[in-house]
C-alpha cells in the first residue's frame, strides 16, 4: 500500500478533487457435502478506484493496473466522465467538500489471526457432515466455512501530496454454515445453522466458529429437519408473532434498513432496488413503530459484520440512533446524499469492491435491546407462533408490503410453547407492522448476525451487512402455512 500511496502522490490530477481507494481481498471457501469434500476454492482480488470531482461533475475509473501508468490512466478516465457529466449532472458536485481522513481500523483479532489451519477446519466440517446423516430420510447435508480478509486504503490526492497516511483498514470475516435436507412422503424440509445464506457472519477470528455454534450443529440441525418433516403446517390466522434474531435480521433489514437509505428516498434506485415509502418530511416526526422501537446504525460494534472506521468516501464512522422511542430521526445516507438532500445521515457510502462506486448502504443496523426475557414474552402470549430462521423474503419496491417465511415455527398456546409447525409464513405492511411491536427482548435474547448478500445498486453490488437484534413480539399479525 505504501508504494501505491507514493505513486499516487507523484501524479498530477489537475482536478478539484481526486481520491484513490485500493481494495485487496483474499478469500477461501471450505465445504463438505454428503461427507465428500467440495473443491477447495480461493480468491485473490486486487484493484483500485479513482474518483474525480471536477467543475461540478463526478466520474470514477476502476483498474487493476496499480502502476503509475495505470493510475494515471484511471485519473484521466475518471476526469473524462466528470467532464461529460458536468453539464448534465443530477447534482452540482462542486457544492460538496469530501473529507481528507487519515487513520487505521482493524477487525478484532486481525493482528493475531493464525494461518488458516485448513486440514483442521476440513476435519471439523467432515465431522459435522457425518454427524448430520442421522437417518435415511436425510437426503442432503453439508457444512461450510468461508474466510475472507480485506485490506483497504482510502486517500485523497491532497492528503497523499502532503505525505499523510490516508485511511488503512484491515478486515477479517468468518462465515460458517450448516444445512440439512430431509425428505419423506413427498415432503422436503431444510433446516440450517443461522439460515441458508450464512446469517452467522461476523468480523474476527476463528473463535466465531465456536460462538456461532458450528461445533455440534450437524446433528442438531438434522434432528430439527426430521422434526419439521413430522410437523403440521403452520396454522392460518391473525395472532401474536414472536420473531427470533435469525428472522429479525431480515425483518429489520428489509422493512427498516432499505426504506431509510437516502439514495432510495432521492430516487436513484427507482429503476432497480426501488423507492421508499419514507419521504424527507417524515424525519423528526413520523411514528415508525411503537415506543419500544429503538434502531441504531453502528459501524463501531466489535465483531459485527459491517464494522469499519471510515466509509468509502472517507467519513468517520460513529453510532447514530435512526429511530428513537418509535420516532424516525435520521436516514441512512452518506456525505453526497446528505449534501443532495439537506438531511443528516451516517457514514455509509459503501462499495462492495474496487470495481464498484460507493452508494448508500446500511452497515450494522441494530435493534437496541429492551427489558423482556424470552420466557416473559412467551408467557404473555395466549395464541401465537414463534418463528425462527429466515428462508423466504419479499417486499414491494416502496418497502411496505412484505411477506417472510421461516424454516421453523413453534405454536404458543396459553403462554407456553407447544407444537412445532412447518412452513411458517407471515405478511404485513411496514408502516403498521412496527407499531404492533409489543415487547422487545433483553440482551440475553439478542444475537449478532448479518448477511453477506445484500444486493442493490446500478451497476449491481452485493455487500456485507451486520444486524444485531433481540427477539421481538408483535401483536395481531397475518400468519399462514404452506399448501394444504
Amino acid at each position, binding site marked *: 500500500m505504501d508504494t501505491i500511496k507514493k505513486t499516487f502522490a507523484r501524479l498530477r490530477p489537475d482536478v478539484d478533487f481526486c481520491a484513490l481507494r485500493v481494495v485487496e481481498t483474499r478469500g477461501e471457501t471450505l465445504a463438505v457435502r454428503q461427507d465428500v469434500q467440495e473443491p477447495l476454492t480461493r480468491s485473490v482480488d486486487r484493484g483500485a478506484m479513482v474518483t474525480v470531482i471536477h467543475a461540478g461533475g463526478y466520474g470514477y475509473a476502476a483498474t487493476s493496473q496499480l502502476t503509475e501508468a495505470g493510475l494515471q490512466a484511471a485519473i484521466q478516465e475518471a476526469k473524462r466522465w466528470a467532464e461529460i457529466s458536468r453539464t448534465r449532472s443530477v447534482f452540482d458536485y462542486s457544492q460538496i467538500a469530501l473529507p481528507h481522513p487519515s487513520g487505521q481500523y482493524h477487525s478484532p483479532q486481525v493482528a493475531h489471526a493464525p494461518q488458516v489451519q485448513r486440514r483442521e477446519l476440513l476435519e471439523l466440517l467432515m465431522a459435522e457432515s457425518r454427524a448430520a446423516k442421522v437417518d435415511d430420510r436425510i437426503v442432503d447435508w453439508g457444512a461450510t466455512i468461508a474466510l475472507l480478509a480485506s485490506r483497504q486504503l482510502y486517500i485523497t490526492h491532497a492528503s497523499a501530496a502532503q505525505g499523510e497516511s490516508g485511511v488503512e483498514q484491515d478486515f477479517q470475516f468468518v462465515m460458517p454454515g450448516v444445512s440439512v*435436507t430431509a425428505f419423506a412422503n413427498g415432503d*422436503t424440509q431444510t433446516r440450517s445453522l443461522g439460515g441458508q445464506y450464512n446469517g452467522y457472519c461476523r468480523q474476527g477470528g476463528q473463535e466465531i466458529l465456536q460462538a456461532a455454534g458450528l461445533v455440534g450443529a450437524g446433528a442438531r440441525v438434522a434432528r430439527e429437519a426430521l422434526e419439521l418433516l413430522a410437523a403440521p403446517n403452520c396454522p392460518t390466522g391473525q395472532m401474536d408473532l414472536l420473531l427470533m434474531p435469525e428472522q429479525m435480521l431480515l425483518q429489520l433489514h428489509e422493512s427498516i434498513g432499505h426504506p431509510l437509505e437516502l439514495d432510495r428516498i432521492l430516487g436513484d434506485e427507482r429503476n432497480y432496488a426501488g423507492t421508499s415509502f419514507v419521504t424527507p418530511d417524515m424525519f423528526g416526526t413520523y411514528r415508525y413503530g411503537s415506543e419500544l422501537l429503538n434502531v441504531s446504525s453502528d459501524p463501531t460494534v466489535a465483531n459485527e459484520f459491517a464494522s469499519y472506521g471510515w466509509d468509502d468516501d472517507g467519513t468517520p464512522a460513529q453510532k447514530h440512533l435512526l429511530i428513537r422511542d418509535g420516532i424516525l430521526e435520521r436516514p441512512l445516507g452518506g456525505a453526497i446524499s446528505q449534501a443532495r438532500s439537506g438531511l443528516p445521515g451516517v457514514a455509509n457510502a459503501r462499495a462492495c469492491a474496487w470495481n464498484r462506486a460507493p452508494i448508500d448502504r446500511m452497515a450494522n443496523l441494530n435493534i437496541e435491546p429492551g427489558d423482556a426475557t424470552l420466557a416473559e414474552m412467551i408467557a404473555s402470549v395466549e395464541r401465537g407462533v414463534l418463528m425462527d430462521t429466515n428462508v423466504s423474503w419479499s417486499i414491494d419496491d416502496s418497502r411496505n408490503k412484505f411477506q417472510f417465511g421461516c424454516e421453523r415455527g413453534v405454536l404458543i398456546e396459553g403462554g407456553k410453547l407447544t407444537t412445532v409447525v412447518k412452513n411458517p409464513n407471515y405478511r404485513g405492511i411496514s408502516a403498521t407492522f412496527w407499531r404492533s411491536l409489543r415487547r422487545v427482548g433483553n440482551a440475553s435474547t439478542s444475537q449478532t448476525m448479518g448477511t453477506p448478500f445484500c444486493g442493490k445498486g446500478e*451497476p449491481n453490488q452485493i455487500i456485507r451487512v451486520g444486524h444485531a437484534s433481540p427477539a421481538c413480539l408483535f401483536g395481531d399479525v397475518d400468519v399462514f402455512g404452506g399448501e394444504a
Partner: protein
Amino acid sequence: MQHEFFELADLVQAQLRPGERFTAWLAAETSDFVRFNHARVRQAGHVQQAHLTLRLVADGKQVSVTMTLSQQVAEDRAQVLHQLDALRGQLPDVAVDPHLLLADTCHVASRREANPELQAAVIVEAVTSRAAAYDLVGILACGVIAHGFAADTGSRLWAETTSFNLEWSLFAHGDKAVKSAYAGTVWEEAVFADKLAHAVGQLALLQRPARTLTPGAYRAFFTPVALESLLSMLNWGGFSEKQLQVKRSPLLKLQTGEAAFSPLVTLVENSAQGLSPPFQGEGFLKPAEAPLVRDGQLFGSLVSPRTAKEYGLTANADAEETTQSLHMAAGDLPEADVLRRLDTGLYIGNLWYLNFSDRMNARITGMTRFATFWVENGEIVAPLNVMRFDDSLFRVLGEHLEALTVERALLVDTDTYGARHTASSLLPGALVRRFELVL
C-alpha cells in the same frame, strides 16, 4: 486480451509436472457504467477488470484460485506462476474428489463481435437530451465483454462481444412508471427514440387515478417481462439436476407426476441462439438445445459436470445448473388480441421481488410493479397500486394457463453483479384464468 490469456495458459501448460492437469477460465470486461436519475447523470465511470480462475488437478484432487489480472504481462505471468505453486502446496490438504469430471476433448474456437464505434458518451448525450422533459431513471452498461477457456488438452476457446444495455424507467408520479430496455451491439438513436416515445405514450395511462384491488383471484395477462420474472424462479434449483436428486427442486412434483404444467408449456435451454459463450467454465461445450419441459411435462434437466459424475449422467450446463438462454414455445394468441381476450382483469407489465412461499409446491410470492393496469371489457381503465401475489406455478402455468402469445420477446439480462451478465430469454406473453392476490 485473447492473446494474453492464451499465453498465460501456455505458460501454465509448460510448467505442468507429470500427472498434473489444469483448466483456466477468464472473465474480462471493459465497461462504462452511467446511472441516470431525473434524466440527468447521477454517477458515471469506467471499469476495467479481468479475473482468471486457474484449477490444478493431480492424483484425483482439485484446487482452484480466482485472481485479478493486472493486464501487465510480466506481472500477470509472475502472479500465475506464484498461484500455480500455491495450488500445488494446497493439494496435500484436500481429499481425492470422487465427483471430479474433466473434459478430455480439445476444442479450439473463437467468436468475436467487435464494434469500436460504440461510445457510451454518445448514448449519454441521446438519453439526457431526448428524455430531458421526463423523469427518467436507469442504467447504461457499455463496452467489451470477453470469456475464455483453456486446458491442458489443448482447448483454447474465446468469446468476445462489444455491446450496450440501456435499461430505464420513465416515471409518471410516485411509484407509477414504465420500464423499458434497449440492448444491442450497434446503437441507433432512432430506435431509442421510438422506444422512448412508446414509453411516453404509456405515461398518459399512468396519470389516471390508480385503482386498488381487494385480495382475491383475477384474470391476468403477463407480458414477456413479467413472465420472465416467474420463470426465473425456476433457476432457484428448478431445472437443477442436483436439486432434483436431493429433493430440493421446486419442480420435484413435476418430475414425480404429482403436478403438471399446461400442455402449452414447452421450455428449452437454447444455447445455440443465446448471447452467452457456447462453452461453460469447465470447458464443456453446451449442447445447441437442452429440452427442459415438453408439453407441460418435465423432460430434462440442467446437469453440471460435477453432478454428471456424481449421478452418472451427461453434462449439459454450467456449474450452477441455471438457464442462460431459456426459450419458451409460442402460443396462438396474437398480441393485438390480448386485451380483448383478457376482457376484465390485470395487465401485468412487471413483477418484483419474487421468492418461494412454499418451495416444494412451487408456490411463489412477489409484487406487481411499474406498468400494471386494470382492464375492463378489453380496455385499459386505470393503473393499479402495487399488489402482493401468492400462487403456485403449478396452477398459474398449469390448469389456469389459457393462452400464450404468438409473438415472443428477446429479453437480455441486465444484471451486473460482479460483472456484466450475458444471459437472455425468448418468451411469449401469458394469459391466465386466475391469479391470486393476497395483500
